[in-house]
């Protein structure tokens, strides 16, 4: 049964970026309207003519641009990228002016622009066929899921978050004391209130709320919520006597409070101490409605529900204290949700929309008398929303300290783009250890890639979703509640005493719904209903059986968006319900994966529901107790790890290294390379699909967008030029085009308009017209009269590609040089120092301000050379150590000469056995002419490959007799040689080579500048200094750190030890303090030291140098 077809169908139909698109589409369909509805209307207060503006339906237009002349035209993403514009659609809002409840006027107003996610329902590309996409110049395989802001592609990376509205109980040990805590992050969109219930050593239970400066006793909160008697409070928590006994201390501490009113007074006194009584009461009430569990509602009507929820939170806490249940696991993936673009933009839009309304109200109230739609229309400043959204996405700055929310889309190669769109960030600080949070958790299985995570500070915090992962979309909680009541759930109000005492507690979407006696029965029925299609497939239900029978069972039903689901085949009676026939129909395209859910043969389970499942990995180990079976084992990997052949034979960190390296490899990122305008881009000239592919290769289009080449690789030492992971490359292979690539760099220049009618000009700056910063004629030789370099010109560092002059920076500069008249500055754009190339493309267009915009792309052919970095797909990286003539390379008896020779020492400690198998499989593939499947767990194994090799007359171990090309002598041992897919990584020596003798120095410290781009020096650092000290090489030390660095002479007064100055009239150095009595001597010190002395002086410290004659 080829169940891979299911995974393939899911990813083909849903696309790689479905999680972003679903989230965004949800926002434009419902989210934006509900935010507007939340505000609903605004009252314009005026003494004479008060009126009201009511907001109606939100309508989103098509992505468009408003040109400087006011003309409007629809645009596609490509135009946004090219013209440095944003891909946005107008937001139109129906507004109704009402006076005394009578509708006066009604009109639709433009309230701002919404950034459009590429390929979302709002994007024109989402409705195009493949051919149409090609015709408009877009890549049909582009996954979308990102935004275009100011011409650059930005992704809102998925943000991992704690599930809202869940009761998490935990035990903390502080100084030998056990403190039991129950925490709830009560969240409504855009607002979150953390509630913490704790039980200290004395046994009193207190509640901490964000809106209260002090902890409040549980009993008093319960009383304030309307449960006045101790008995009712105890019953709201639990009817079990052992739990009720633990409440004794809490009741004792609240004996003086009896009624709701007294409780409110008590709370008011704590939260608003010293205020007038009326205010204190109001504070207390608002604390109950807004500060306490706001997700249950923000009016006094919901206080009963809140008391029940609070009771449950306390019950869980006490059950933990009694040891009936275990503490909750914060790292369990059932306690996490992932927020994608839609939710993130909703947060932003809410504040932006509120700001717009506030601004509108202020303006209308200030202008006073006049009213009507024209005035309202004039008071709307769409820029408030437009700018807020655009700036947030452009910078990643989400406000309230949230930075780095968006990132520039990685376009290094196609794979890195896909991986970037499936990345997840954790909000946890990367500077703190957070050990457990970084660990791989059992619930990550099939949801999060076990291998793909960065090394170092972000390890385990940045993750990638697995191929099989599906992110839930939100569904209606009320429908689910309806189903549950049909199935016999009694709500908290309805339930009788027995049901309460013995029944299971059931929670829906973070609310305490009620009780049911037969919990397991309900769960099974609910699942049956879901499998019949009566309930949304993303709704999960899980039954938590306590480890002690005295505790109650709990059922959680979750409908929230952002949970990570995974498909599992349903097993009944030891047999999967999925048949071969059904699979065949999927293969033929008659059925879709979604039909499998409707047919009741596959479930989408989240991590909580999976706790109720018994899942087998494959049919071989299937028994009658199993409830589910994996769909396909290798779908547990993410996009990068799934392209590693035979990963299960590698030491696991190697797969992690490869997951990171694959994203740096050069390939064929997109067929649109002819007119892309990325700042940096690489293109591999002869990319090849790998001979040893995995199941995901065609699925991820890696057969069409490859990132490497199949190389003949021998494992052999060669004159020591491949020690320390270096590789030897055959020169003839390079001559024939092996690993040849192009590097593109974009230069751009726009003409700005300045105040006073002056503007930038594109021209050849002329030597005669007194241009400040004139570079010299030869640098302008390639540009033509329009100021731009000609296509296919050969350029190198310093050559101007866009000639531009600008008006003087400040008006004052005119006066200073009045004799010479006004001068302009040269603001030409030149090729970066130490880069060369050919002008590949010149784009001339207009930016949104109407200024002319030139983009010049320079290409540089990169032929592999010593120092360029390569890697196989097994985390085996190395630089070229030597390029060897083909005639000197070793050869086999068939005349096969390797393209690459790697060192045998690369294997024993790394244990990348997968590379050996790949090498043999590659050889077999080359011999048979058919690619070989190297998918994890299911690929063709080494035995089968050995058989193929044998059939073609090769040794089944992959070893061959080889001869030394220099001597013609047979090597004493057989050499392991085969075909391995090699990736050229973007770290090339041409971009890094750097040397300096003398050069620029920094203005402040007079020390050499830093970095290759500035012609900087190579730092002689502390450790290098330590070496010289250890050797006792004092003169070398002085030479490096003083003579050849920032040596300066200063004049010091021997008497006071302070720096003397040169008096031009007396023609000598004098000391300000000692005057004539001073004796000045000259000393050589580092300029940085002089600077330090003077900086200290500026802080009122007198550093004195004690000078003595050298003996």
């Amino acid at each position, binding site marked *: 049964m080829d169940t891979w077809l299911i995974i393939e169908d899911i990813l083909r139909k849903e696309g790689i970026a479905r999680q972003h698109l679903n989230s965004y589409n949800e926002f434009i369909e419902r989210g934006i309207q509900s935010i507007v509805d939340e505000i609903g209307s605004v009252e314009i207060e005026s003494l004479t003519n008060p009126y009201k503006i009511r907001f109606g339906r939100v309508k989103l237009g098509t992505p468009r641009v408003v040109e400087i002349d006011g003309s409007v035209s629809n645009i596609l993403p490509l135009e946004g990228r090219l013209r440095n514009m944003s891909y946005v659609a107008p937001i139109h809002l129906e507004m109704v002016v009402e006076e005394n409840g009578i509708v006066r006027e009604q009109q639709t107003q433009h309230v701002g622009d919404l950034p459009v996610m590429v390929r979302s329902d709002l994007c024109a590309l989402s409705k195009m066929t493949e051919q149409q996409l090609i015709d408009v110049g877009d890549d049909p395989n582009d996954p979308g899921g990102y935004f275009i802001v100011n011409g650059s592609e930005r992704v809102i990376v998925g943000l991992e978050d704690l599930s809202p509205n869940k009761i998490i109980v935990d035990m903390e040990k502080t100084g030998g004391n056990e403190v039991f805590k129950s925490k709830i992050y009560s969240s409504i969109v855009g607002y979150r209130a953390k509630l913490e219930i704790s039980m200290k050593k004395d046994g009193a239970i207190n509640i901490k709320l964000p809106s209260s400066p002090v902890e409040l006793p549980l009993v008093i909160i319960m009383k304030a919520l309307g449960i006045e008697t101790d008995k009712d409070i105890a019953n709201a928590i639990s009817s079990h006597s052992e739990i009720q006994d633990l409440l004794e201390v809490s009741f004792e501490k609240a004996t003086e409070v009896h009624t709701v009113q007294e409780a409110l007074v008590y709370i008011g006194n704590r939260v608003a101490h010293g205020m007038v009584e009326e205010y204190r009461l109001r504070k207390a009430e608002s604390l109950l409605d807004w500060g306490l569990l706001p997700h249950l509602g923000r009016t006094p009507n919901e206080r009963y529900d809140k008391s029940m929820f609070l009771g449950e939170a306390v019950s869980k806490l006490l059950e933990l204290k009694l040891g009936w249940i275990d503490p909750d696991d914060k790292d369990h993936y059932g306690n996490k949700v992932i927020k994608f673009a839609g939710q993130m933009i909703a947060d932003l839009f809410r504040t932006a929309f509120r700001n717009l309304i506030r601004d509108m109200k202020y303006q209308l109230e200030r202008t006073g008398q006049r009213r009507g739609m024209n005035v309202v229309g004039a008071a709307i400043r769409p820029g408030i929303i437009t700018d807020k959204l655009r700036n947030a996405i452009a910078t990643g700055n989400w406000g309230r300290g949230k930075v780095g929310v968006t990132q520039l889309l990685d376009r290094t190669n196609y794979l890195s783009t896909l991986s970037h769109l499936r990345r997840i960030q954790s909000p946890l600080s990367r500077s703190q250890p957070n050990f457990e949070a970084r660990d791989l958790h059992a619930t990550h299985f099939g949801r999060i890639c076990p291998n793909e995570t960065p090394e170092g500070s972000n390890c385990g915090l940045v993750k990638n979703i697995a191929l099989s992962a599906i992110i839930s979309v939100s569904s209606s909680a009320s429908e689910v509640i309806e189903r549950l009541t049909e199935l016999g759930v009694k709500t908290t109000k309805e339930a009788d005493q027995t049901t309460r005492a013995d029944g299971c507690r059931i929670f829906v979407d973070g609310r305490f719904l009620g009780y049911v006696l037969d919990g397991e029965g309900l769960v099974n029925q609910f699942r049956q209903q879901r499998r019949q299609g009566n309930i949304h497939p993303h709704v999960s239900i899980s039954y938590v059986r306590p480890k002690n029978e005295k505790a109650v069972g709990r059922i959680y039903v979750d409908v929230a968006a952002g949970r990570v689901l995974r498909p599992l085949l349903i097993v009944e009676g030891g047999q999967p319900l999925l048949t071969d026939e059904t699979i065949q129909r999927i293969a033929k395209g008659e059925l879709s994966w979604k039909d499998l859910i409707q047919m009741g043969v596959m479930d989408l389970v989240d991590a909580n529901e999976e706790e109720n499942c018994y899942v087998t990995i494959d049919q071989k180990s299937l028994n009658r107790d199993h409830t589910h079976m994996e769909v396909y084992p290798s779908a547990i990997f993410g996009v990068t790890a799934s392209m590693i052949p035979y990963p299960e034979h590698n030491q696991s960190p190697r797969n992690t290294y490869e997951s990171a390296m694959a994203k740096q490899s050069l390939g064929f990122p997109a067929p649109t390379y002819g007119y892309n305008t990325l700042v940096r881009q690489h293109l591999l000239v002869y990319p090849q699909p790998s001979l040893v592919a995995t199941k995901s290769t065609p699925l991820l289009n890696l057969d069409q967008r490859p990132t490497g080449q199949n190389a003949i690789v021998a494992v052999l030492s060669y004159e020591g030029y491949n020690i320390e992971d270096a590789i030897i490359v055959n020169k003839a292979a390079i001559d*024939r085009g092996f690993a040849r690539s192009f590097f593109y760099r974009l230069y751009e220049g726009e003409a700005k308009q300045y105040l006073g009618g002056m503007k930038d000009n594109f021209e050849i700056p002329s030597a005669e017209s007194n241009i400040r910063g004139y570079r010299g004629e030869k640098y302008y030789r390639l540009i033509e009269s329009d100021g731009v370099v000609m296509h296919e010109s050969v350029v190198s560092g310093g050559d101007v590609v866009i000639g531009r002059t600008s008006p003087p920076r400040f008006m004052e500069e005119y006066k200073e040089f009045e004799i010479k008249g006004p001068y302009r500055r040269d603001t030409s754009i030149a090729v970066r120092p130490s880069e060369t190339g050919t002008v590949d493309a010149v784009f001339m267009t207009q930016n949104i301000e109407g200024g002319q915009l030139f983009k010049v792309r320079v290409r540089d052919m990169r032929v592999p050379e010593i120092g360029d970095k390569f890697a196989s797909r097994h985390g085996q990286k190395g630089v070229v150590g030597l390029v060897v003539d083909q005639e000197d390379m070793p050869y*086999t008896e068939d005349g096969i000469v390797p393209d690459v020779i790697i060192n045998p020492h690369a294997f024993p400690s790394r244990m990348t056995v997968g590379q050996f198998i790949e090498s043999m499989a590659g050889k077999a593939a080359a011999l048979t002419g058919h690619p070989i499947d190297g998918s994890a767990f299911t690929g063709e194994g080494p035995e089968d490959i050995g058989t193929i090799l044998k059939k073609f007359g090769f040794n089944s171990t992959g070893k061959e007799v080889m001869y030394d090309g220099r001597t013609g002598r*047979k090597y004493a041992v057989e050499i392991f040689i085969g075909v391995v897919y090699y990736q050229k990584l973007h770290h090339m020596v041409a971009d890094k080579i750097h040397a300096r003798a003398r050069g620029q120095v920094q203005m402040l410290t007079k020390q050499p500048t830093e970095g290759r781009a500035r012609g900087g020096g190579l730092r002689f650092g502390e450790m290098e200094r330590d070496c010289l000290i250890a050797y006792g090489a004092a003169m070398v030390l002085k030479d490096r750190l003083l003579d050849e660095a920032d040596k300066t002479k200063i004049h010091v007064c021997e008497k006071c030890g302070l720096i003397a100055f040169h008096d031009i009239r007396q023609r000598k150095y004098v000391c300000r303090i000692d005057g004539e009595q001073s004796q000045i001597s000259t000393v050589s010190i580092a300029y940085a030291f002089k600077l330090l002395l003077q900086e200290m002086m500026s802080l009122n410290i007198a550093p004195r140098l004690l000078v003595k004659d050298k003996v």
Partner: protein
Amino acid sequence: MAIDEVVILENSSVLYDELMAHRLGLLPLKTDLERYILPEQCDCRSPLGCPKCRVLLVLDAQARDRVVTIYSGELVSEDKEVIPISDKIPIVKLATGQKVKLEAYAKLGRGKDHAKWQPVSASVLTETGKEDEFELYIESVGSLTAPTILSKAAEILHDKLNQFATAKGLA
């Protein structure tokens, strides 16, 4: 012989000029060692060579109404003996409206300088087991016949040995 200099008159294909030249260079050409000499041994000293040391091949192709693949057979050589070993080697695919017009200069050269001048695709020297006896297997790419390759190689080796002997005063 292999194409070594290309003058591109027009190229609106997706292949950059330098890539086009690289691909042309790798086309194996049928070679007559008797009629041509190495450019460095020629007294013309011209960068594009003279009839003694080079052959001009011209490519003028365009796609008018459909996508076409341009094959080696479309190269027109001034010497009908010096042509690609096969007509079926793809050079570039042209989309409608694209055009390539170029002059390519083929010259003699050495495999050591660039793989395009290697006359063989395989050259294997193996031990036979008997003392001082070896087996040499060569496989021509088609530019020269295997016997020509072997005798020319022997000739070059012989000349080198003579030069060595002369230099050392052994002759």
